[in-house]
């Protein structure tokens, strides 16, 4: 332990010195205002149309979705998605709770929901993908390994530093999005109730377990789930960076799998074995919001098991490869 702490510290400082983390913050600081502005325009427009009465707007949303149900041109899966959506909106309306109460907190909640499968993993990759391959590209890996430190300790310290930065990235995503969107929508709204616990079976939603949760707790749970997803993505990217020699290649590999994942979730509901792929399981927050899973039969424990297995395997592979492999150049 005495031996490890300085190593971890060393790795952390290296990550900071490479300025990758600042790049991430910069990306957030540029993109979040854009999303905020788009959201603001939508809110303004619907205020004009619906007399700033959210109930009318939600009812219209329900009617529009019901109308699209009667169209034969819409695939059956979308219809069941919309049926579920209608039932949830109805529930909100019946309990007089605005599902989209405009506030910085609501914006953050939606932003987190939308960014869990692609955006946050991308940010994670920015740090994770060059941890080992970067040392190879610059040749500093030789310096690192000629020290009288066991190889697994080197790798372990890198991994610990990575996990620390994963937490920091998730935290800063929340903070940046809350602080910036709050400028436009206001900083209050942590106690607004959000419904969770919709149990989806086929077309219908079981409402018996639905309960209201204050928004702060909802976001806390969301962040927890996102954090878990991020750790797994980080471990996988880390493995790729051990296996692949160049940083560019390792980023491309991870990007390709992630993007394949989003495409698959959109169209592979017929290919059921795809549910064992990690990238299909990244949308853990959907279980909280009650959106139907991309493939029938996926549940939170299932997704966690899949992600956990992938993460564990990638750790094992990283360590065995890194401790055994010859370093040639």
């Amino acid at each position: 332990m005495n031996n490890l702490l300085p190593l971890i510290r060393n790795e952390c400082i290296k990550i900071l010195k490479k300025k990758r983390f600042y790049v991430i913050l910069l990306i957030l600081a540029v993109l979040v205002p854009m999303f905020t502005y788009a959201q603001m325009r939508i809110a303004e427009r619907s205020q004009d149309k619906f007399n700033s009465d959210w109930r009318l707007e939600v009812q219209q949303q329900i009617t529009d979705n019901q109308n699209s149900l009667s169209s034969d041109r819409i695939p059956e899966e979308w219809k069941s998605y919309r049926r579920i959506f209608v039932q949830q909106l109805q529930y909100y309306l019946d309990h007089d709770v605005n599902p989209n109460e405009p506030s910085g907190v609501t914006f953050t909640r939606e932003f987190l929901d939308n960014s869990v499968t692609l955006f946050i993993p991308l940010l994670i990759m920015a740090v994770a993908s060059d941890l080992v391959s970067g040392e190879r590209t610059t040749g500093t890996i030789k310096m690192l390994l000629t020290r009288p430190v066991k190889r697994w300790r080197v790798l372990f310290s890198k991994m610990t530093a990575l996990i620390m930065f994963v937490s920091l990235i998730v935290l800063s995503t929340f903070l940046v999005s809350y602080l910036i969107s709050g400028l436009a929508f206001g900083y209050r709204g942590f106690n607004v109730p959000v419904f969770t616990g919709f149990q989806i079976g086929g077309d219908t939603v079981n409402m018996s377990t639905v309960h209201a949760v204050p928004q702060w707790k909802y976001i806390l749970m969301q962040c927890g789930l996102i954090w878990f997803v991020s750790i797994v993505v980080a471990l996988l990217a880390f493995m790729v960076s051990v296996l692949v020699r160049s940083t560019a290649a390792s980023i491309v590999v991870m990007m390709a799998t992630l993007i394949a994942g989003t495409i698959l979730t959109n169209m592979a509901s017929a290919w059921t074995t795809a549910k064992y792929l990690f990238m299909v399981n990244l949308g853990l927050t959907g279980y909280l919001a009650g959106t139907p899973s991309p493939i029938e039969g996926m549940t939170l424990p299932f997704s966690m098991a899949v992600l956990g297995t992938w993460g564990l395997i990638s750790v094992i592979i990283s360590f065995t490869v890194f401790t055994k492999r010859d370093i040639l150049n």
Partner: protein
Amino acid sequence: MNDSKWTWRFVCLISIAATLIFIVGFGYAVKDIVYPQGDAPLTALPQKTGAPDEEVTGILKVVAIGDSLAKGTGDNTGSGFVKRAVEGMSEGDQEVNLLGNLGINGLTTLGLQNELNEEGVKYTLRQANTILVSIGGNDLFRGAGIVQSNSNTSSPTSDEPSAPTDELTSKELLAALPEASKRLEEALLKIAEINPEAKIYFLGLYNPFGDIPELRVPGNQAVTVWNNAAMDIINTHSNMTLVPTFDLFHNHLEKYLSTDHFHPNGDGYQRIADRIIQAVH
């Protein structure tokens, strides 16, 4: 060196704190999703926001409810009679707000009754002072199976072999009527009960099959019976008005019906809208 020592401490502290928070949140989330604690949906009962309107302002607040006609199916511009009527009404100094269009394709009187039990629908109706209702076409024509199988209603059930097909379809059309008009009455009364203040404009039916010889007479009969039944209901309530459309389409079907031969086209909707404007003003 001192500088990096300080950043290291800072990073270390924050990341450990964040990690702990996230683990707690993760635990909460797993617990909440896997074992959702019982049912406690009694948190917030539907707040009965009645509409003690600011009637003084004289703003028309329009809500449309009913079937595909209310929705505007067949109109290439997507406006339907609702938007066209709202546009027409707001041409003068009159301020008109369209609060919502709750028209659903294929809605029958039965479906309308179910709709009227929804909290959100009730709420929307309560906010309005002008309610446009269009219902019945699907009960009459779809219930008799005419829309799906145009005039192919063969007659295996007919007792007399000499019975002409129009009488049969006429019977079939009329068969759906008594129950449908009863449901119509219930639905209209329900709307009036939800919002006793509002003026209700009910759209009469036209016969979309007037140019099919076998269906011309029975269709006209059925539509007339329906419109009369609606008139009977509406006459007893001062807040309700029947807006007839039968004559608008009677001999001009090819001009005012859209390609599906059932819904009006844009011009047809415009004619309906003009009628509604006259009735409202």
